[in-house]
């Protein structure tokens, strides 16, 4: 175990890494704020002040007592602005946003559809479940067991769904679609790991390690160190993204089911947001670990650190470009932010069984990790001639 610590100290566990991390965290926040914060700040004041002032009067369990005055006000605003003749006078005493048209947008364009979604969601999911049941019966009747099982799975997942409370879930658009931090993770991985093996050669330590008979255990320690680094980056940048979403938009309803967010209305998963975030960390970890092991391998076969860095960046660039042409789960970059895999019901055929694509992606990442671990252990840089 001690040797893993020293491998961390050699590669990424140092002050320079911390400094770069702080700089990239600030960059990440600026990017997140630029993406979403501007809309709410401009439309509804600092941190969506006006939005949350109204939201707090209707959030939580949906009841007629709560909704009736909201509905009445929304209808009144709609009538007042429908002829496009309305006052532009700033009246913060009358309107949340200070303007009648601003409040019209707040009530009818932003919050009303959100409440409506929560209230009517069971209809959406019941319809999906009903369609799935119909398909199940059809494929069962024609003897297609695979398709029948797939739709049986879908039926179980989508039946009896409810959104118990109305919560502000617009932060999910920022958090679950924010892939800038994934790019930063890749940069951190390359800067931290590209010299893992080349450093031994350049410092002359390769021969000392080889003569001690500890080449293989050193390699395994480097792999373990890379795993710790990937876990740290996964947790850190997920937390940073969540913090950015909270500062920019306000995070609410972490205990609500995933399909509470409209972007996930067709998701097969019933996890809560907090459970999903933990799952995201796990998926991100495996995706980053695949990339990390590839960087380690590049370091092992490179004659020096510069070549290793160039190879690693080249590899990352190719994979990023490939994500634009293919959504294959073989590409770890497609699952670093696995949102697309969770938005829709999608399965792959594994030995005749339908498996949700997200689970298949995780299994595939684990296999890729195992193969790359073996490659790093048995191929490449030799101290022995």
């Amino acid at each position, binding site marked *: 175990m*001690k*040797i893993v610590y*020293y491998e961390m*100290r*050699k590669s990424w566990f*140092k002050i320079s890494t911390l400094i770069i991390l702080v700089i990239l965290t600030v960059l990440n926040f600026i990017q997140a704020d630029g993406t979403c914060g501007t809309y709410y700040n401009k439309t509804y004041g600092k941190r969506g002040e006006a939005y949350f002032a109204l939201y707090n009067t209707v959030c939580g369990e949906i009841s007629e007592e709560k909704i009736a005055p909201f509905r009445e006000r929304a209808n009144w605003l709609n009538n007042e602005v429908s002829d496009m003749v309305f006052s532009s006078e700033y009246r913060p005493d009358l309107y949340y946003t200070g303007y009648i048209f601003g409040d019209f947008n707040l009530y009818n364009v932003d919050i009303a559809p959100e409440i409506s979604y929560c209230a009517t969601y069971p209809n959406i999911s019941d319809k999906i479940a009903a369609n799935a049941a119909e398909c199940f019966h059809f494929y069962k009747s024609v003897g297609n067991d695979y398709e029948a099982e797939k739709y049986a799975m879908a039926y179980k997942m989508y039946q009896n769904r409810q959104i118990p409370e109305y919560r502000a879930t617009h932060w999910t658009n920022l958090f679950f679609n924010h892939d800038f931090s994934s790019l930063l993770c890749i940069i951190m991985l390359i800067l931290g790991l590209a010299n893992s093996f080349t*450093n031994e050669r*350049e*410092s*002359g*330590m390769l*021969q*000392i*390690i*080889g*003569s*001690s*008979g*500890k080449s293989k255990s*050193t390699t395994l320690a480097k792999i373990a160190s890379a795993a710790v680094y990937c876990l740290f980056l996964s947790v850190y940048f997920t937390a940073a993204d969540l913090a950015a979403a909270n500062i920019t938009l306000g995070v609410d309803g972490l205990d609500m089911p995933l399909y509470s967010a409209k972007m996930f209305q067709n998701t097969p998963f019933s996890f809560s947001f907090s459970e999903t975030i933990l799952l995201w960390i796990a998926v991100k970890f495996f995706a980053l670990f695949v990339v990390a092991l590839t960087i380690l391998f590049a370091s092992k076969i490179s004659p020096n650190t510069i070549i290793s860095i160039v190879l690693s960046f080249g590899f990352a660039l190719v994979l990023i470009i490939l994500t634009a042409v293919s959504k294959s789960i073989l590409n770890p970059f497609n699952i670093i932010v696995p949102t697309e895999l969770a938005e829709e019901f999608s399965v792959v055929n594994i030995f005749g069984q339908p498996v949700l694509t997200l689970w298949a992606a995780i299994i595939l990442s684990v296999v890729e990790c195992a193969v790359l671990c073996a490659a790093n252990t048995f191929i490449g840089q030799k*101290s*022995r*001639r």
Partner: protein
Amino acid sequence: MELSIRNVTKTYGKKRALSNFSLDFKAGVYGLLGPNGAGKSTLIGTITGLVKADCGSVLFTDEDGNKLHNKLGYLPQYQSYYKNYSAPEFLRYMLALKNYKPENTSKYISDLLELVNLGDVGKKRIGTFSGGMKQRLGIAQALIGEPSVLIFDEPTAGLDPKERVRFRNIISSLGSDRIVILATHIVSDIEYIANEIILLNDGVMVDFGTQREITEKIDGKVWEFVCDSHDVLEIMSKLRVSNVVSMGEQCKIRAVCDDKPSANAKNIAPDLEDVCLYSFGEL
């Protein structure tokens, strides 16, 4: 304790780097002398396990004849170590690498650093060390685990005279109860501290013995004579000249050859440099 090398051969492509090398080492300091490409690094590689010999065996045994494992300390050429580590941290890493657990780790490390005159480096990073300090740190890491065999490959290359003397003194003190093999082509390093000398050339052991035994073999073949300065170049092209001292219009020449090279030439006592010149044709 014994290190036995039996019929070790290693070939790289068409070049035979080591040819049927056999020798038994006991406690003491051994100087491994040879020109570039003689096979010194290959021999060291087979002992340390970094080079897989084509045939032959390398065996460490203790006093009772039992096999010894992990009892080797090695200082290769050209070490810069991990620049962001301090010396104590680096030695702790080496303790972890060699899986050696002394009773009091801090005391063990500070004693080791004192032994190699690095006791006052504190938390200074290795990247700020001079060449001599790095070499001494190299000795310290080689000593971790109380090895029975110590191997130093060109340890004084690039060191100033003061550092080389300091290094030699440390090595001398280590050879009393260990096998110390010092591979170098700097003859003066061997002259002062080696108990026995191995001469290696083109992968073959040319000679082996104490300094006295080896130099006695070329008694009567080392000459000193005076010549005109303008004849020096011609003489150097014909004879193996180990030294030229200018005395104005004349030069004093020290040369190695079987026959008397000049009428005024006198035999002088040979030294190790003369042996190298005679055996290898170069220094």
